[in-house]
């Protein structure tokens, strides 16, 4: 009798568990569709286009720029009510390239280094992307922070150990700065591959002397007594700028020009918001990144943002050259197999969507 009772109890437990588990938690919920926050589900700032029924999958990253503002305000959803838009979070540009490779995304944000990798052999055989937008030009957002307050320039780091996430824009900037200084990264300093979140531990344990990194780790290291001696703004000034760029599958761009126009318009609108009403934009960034709005607003200063007209100028003139220089660097690092021709990089830059947002 007792066993039967136990058995039915067990059966009941199993059934409840199954029932609990069949109720699905849908993925990709965006903050704009949050019913507790309906006021934020914004209206389209211009006339919405009902005719667009594109299905677009967008890879985003937690970087304080217009892309996350667009995501948080639900601009794409509002301006293309009949399009099906899903947002996929990626941890790095390398991940975004991987997602393109598996055919899981149509648009995605990545640093200029991954974008170069995607436009060079061998990855270019598997993915076919175009850089269609410059989300930000990296300035003080990525910088070299040193432990020893006595060290005031890069030369002082000779013989030391510098942590940086490999293949990132920060890695590129660091190696450019070292070359500029005449230091050989193989012999004069020790450059080690370190993920940002592991840096505070290594810093505390005295295992690194410096790190070239972005927020929130950068702020953390500065708070821990670090000093900023160089930043990506300096390397940009020296002719080696780094960017976070918006990329899109080229076939997707060719098939969905109206979507891309709306997308660029939304990005441009959000850039305008960052420049003219940073408090509102910072709030959106804070929501998406899970940080304080005041911190988000501070982080805007470390990046520069371009409006549509500047985008067109940049993309159609100097950007392919930047990809080419980055490729030269990546070849030395073993990130790519061959530097492509200038035409190859020009082919993977498309100013079309930005142009359609000018004056819109």
């Amino acid at each position, binding site marked *: 009798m007792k*066993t039967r009772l*136990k*058995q039915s*109890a*067990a059966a009941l*437990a*199993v059934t409840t*568990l*199954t029932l*609990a*588990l069949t*109720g*699905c*938690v849908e*993925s990709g*919920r*965006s*903050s704009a569709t*949050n019913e*507790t*926050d309906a006021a*934020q589900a914004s209206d389209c700032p211009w006339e919405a286009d009902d005719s667009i029924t594109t299905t677009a999958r967008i890879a985003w990253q*937690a970087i304080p720029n217009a892309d996350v503002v667009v995501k948080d305000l639900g601009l794409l959803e509002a301006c293309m009510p009949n399009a099906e838009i899903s947002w*996929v*979070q*990626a*941890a790095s540009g390398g*991940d975004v390239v*991987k*997602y393109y*490779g*598996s*055919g*899981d995304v149509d648009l995605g944000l990545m640093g200029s280094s991954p974008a170069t990798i995607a436009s060079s052999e061998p990855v270019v055989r598997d993915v076919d992307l175009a850089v269609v937008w410059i989300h930000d030009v990296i300035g003080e957002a990525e910088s070299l922070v040193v432990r020893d307050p006595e060290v005031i320039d890069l030369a002082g780091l000779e013989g030391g150990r510098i942590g940086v996430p490999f293949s990132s824009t920060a890695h590129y900037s660091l190696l450019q700065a070292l070359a500029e200084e005449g230091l050989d990264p193989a012999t004069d300093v020790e450059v080690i591959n370190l993920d*940002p*979140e592991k840096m*505070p*531990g290594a810093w*505390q344990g005295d295992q690194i002397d410096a790190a070239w990194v972005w927020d*929130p*780790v950068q702020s*953390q290291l500065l708070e821990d007594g670090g000093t900023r001696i160089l930043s990506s703004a300096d390397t940009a000034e020296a002719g080696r700028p780094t960017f976070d760029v918006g990329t899109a599958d080229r076939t997707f761009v060719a098939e969905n020009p109206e979507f891309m126009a709306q997308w660029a318009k939304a990005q441009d609108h959000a850039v305008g918001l960052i420049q003219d009403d940073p408090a509102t934009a910072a*709030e959106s960034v*804070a*929501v998406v*990144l*899970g*940080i*304080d*709005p*005041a911190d988000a607003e501070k982080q805007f200063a470390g990046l520069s943002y371009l409006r549509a007209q500047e985008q067109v100028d940049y993309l159609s003139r100097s950007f392919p050259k930047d990809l080419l220089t980055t490729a030269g660097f990546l070849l030395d690092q073993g990130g790519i197999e061959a530097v492509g021709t200038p035409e190859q990089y020009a082919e993977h830059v498309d100013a079309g969507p930005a142009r359609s947002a000018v004056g819109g």
Partner: protein
Amino acid sequence: MVQLEGRPVPPTTATPESRRTERATRRRTRLQRLAVHGASLAALLLGWWLVTRTGLVRPLYLPPPADVWDAFVRANTDHPISPGSDRIVRGEQNYYLWEHLLASLQRIAIGVGGGVLLGIPLGLLMGTTWLGVVLEPYLNFLRSLPPLAYIGLLIVWFGIGDTSKIWLLFLAVFPPVAMATISGVRGVREDQLNAVRSLGASRRQALTSVVLPATLPEVLTGIRVATGFAWTTVVAAEIANGIPGIGGLAYLAGEQLRTPLVIASILVIGLAAIALDLGLKHLEKSLVPWRGKA
């Protein structure tokens, strides 16, 4: 469910009197054990609080218990993004913590379910036929792979959606289940088989009335072990596009240096795993009461 005809009968020699004292003793031991657990937990929390209170460890490395509790509460409620802001957000990453947990539980349930559905029949086949000799090296190979090593491959094959995550969990779960089944089948006592055979049982009857019931305890242990594996794999599975998911949340929070949330997620993972294991243990007890009594 396979059921034995004759269930083990508790010994009837005990008088009601002695049984009552036995029950009282058992209750006392249980209370004592509870008190020990409670005391150790309190000591742990106190030590944690003291260490953080005295400033021995910086909050980035070990936040005080109150911060972890705050992170836990924030993650389960609608809250303003910062004090005084009128922008309200839901939980963390637009999901409540329990929704993250539920999403992971769903993946684990499907992964473990698939692993069990395939692992048991395969284990039975491998344990009773020549298939075992052929497939065992592959099974061992698969079993020894760290999930982080091949999640990238699964993403290329199955995309970044739930499919690749469930595959990963499935691949982590099914080898231990199959191995447990094999060892269960091989551990069936020959004399019991001979006994039913001499009583005229057919091959099928021998299978259903001796082999399966004798294997079941091992299989259930295998499922418990495998579920444990699934928990250890869930963070690896959810590193890429793992929101909603408790493992994905722990990973993301770590990337953002939000230690209180990391610890809160870890505690939730640990507690959920213990709860699930207790449930399975209970299930085991009620499903195979003959365990250890054959």
